[in-house]
């Protein structure tokens, strides 16, 4: 399977994603420059973390208009998988690929730490390899990760099973003390209505080897392999 990792000016997790896909998972990956209009026949697009365009205006607001995003949106509309992590999640929301918005952390601080993620929906193309309700250990590193939308929109999101991950405590429950950024309803990751776009603030690509402190993020990539290759 071929992964295309988009590099925006200011992306800084593109190398991590490349390493995870190639060295750890053993699949092919290419970098896609943000000014390109060619997805190079990739199967999966990765919108990586970073600080595209210096987070000017709002995180992701400018990157969303990069030339390659026209192709990424078309790929998503065809049902193609898009994995949007951290700044990528912010870009995907700005681009309308995912609902809602990511605002300044309620702590008003950049949060760089390990979190517990509860797998809420283990029946998506990104989470199929996880046990339902399992708890993952994955790092976060962001200043604007407070997932926000209207209450009605959140009800719909939950009703449609679009919440993939939530920040949870050791018992697997949503709990303000386990929520690092004040995200509404503890939401850490969501999928699009069609299920083919995953946005998440935590970094699965940084948790792919016990040497890194956790290999719990591998499941996102392995789930994609199982589902997309099938």
């Amino acid at each position, binding site marked *: 399977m071929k992964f295309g990792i988009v590099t925006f000016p200011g992306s800084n997790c593109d190398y991590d994603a490349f390493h995870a896909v190639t060295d750890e998972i053993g699949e092919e990956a290419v970098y896609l420059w943000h000014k390109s209009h060619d997805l190079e026949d990739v199967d999966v697009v990765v919108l990586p973390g970073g600080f595209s365009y210096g987070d000017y205006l*709002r995180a992701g607001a400018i990157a969303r208009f990069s030339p390659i995003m026209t192709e990424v949106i078309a790929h998503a509309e065809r049902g193609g998988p898009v994995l949007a992590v951290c700044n990528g999640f912010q870009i995907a*929301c700005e681009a309308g690929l995912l*609902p*809602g*918005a990511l*605002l300044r952390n309620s702590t*008003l601080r950049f949060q760089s730490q390990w979190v517990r993620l509860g797998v809420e929906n283990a029946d998506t193309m990104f989470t199929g390899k996880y046990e339902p309700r399992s708890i993952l250990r994955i790092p976060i590193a962001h200043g604007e990760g407070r997932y926000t939308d209207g209450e009605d929109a959140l009800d719909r999101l939950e009703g449609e099973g679009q919440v993939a991950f939530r920040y949870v405590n050791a018992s697997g429950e949503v709990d303000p003390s386990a929520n690092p950024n*004040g995200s509404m309803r503890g939401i850490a990751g969501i999928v699009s209505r069609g299920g083919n776009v995953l946005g998440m603030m935590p970094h699965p690509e940084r948790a792919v080897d016990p040497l890194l402190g956790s290999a719990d993020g591998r499941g996102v990539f392995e789930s994609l392999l199982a589902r997309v290759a099938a």
Partner: protein
Amino acid sequence: MTRFRIGVHVVPRRGILDPQGQAVAEALHTLGFAGVGTVHVGRHIVVDVAAAPRDAAEESVRDMCRKLLANPVTEDFEIATVEAL
């Protein structure tokens, strides 16, 4: 075509948690401004645009707000100043 300098206020929508505004309000209380209620921090954007007439200039800035300058999910905007250059 006339050039207009248009100032827009973009502010967090009411009801959405605004921790930055809360932090500023607390600081103002600490400074002794006891009458301060809620504070909201937004941004003021000034756009210099060529258009005619004035209504068209304002409408084009509103369009910019809907498409880029404000986030329709979490922010409201209003045109604060219009100045013919």
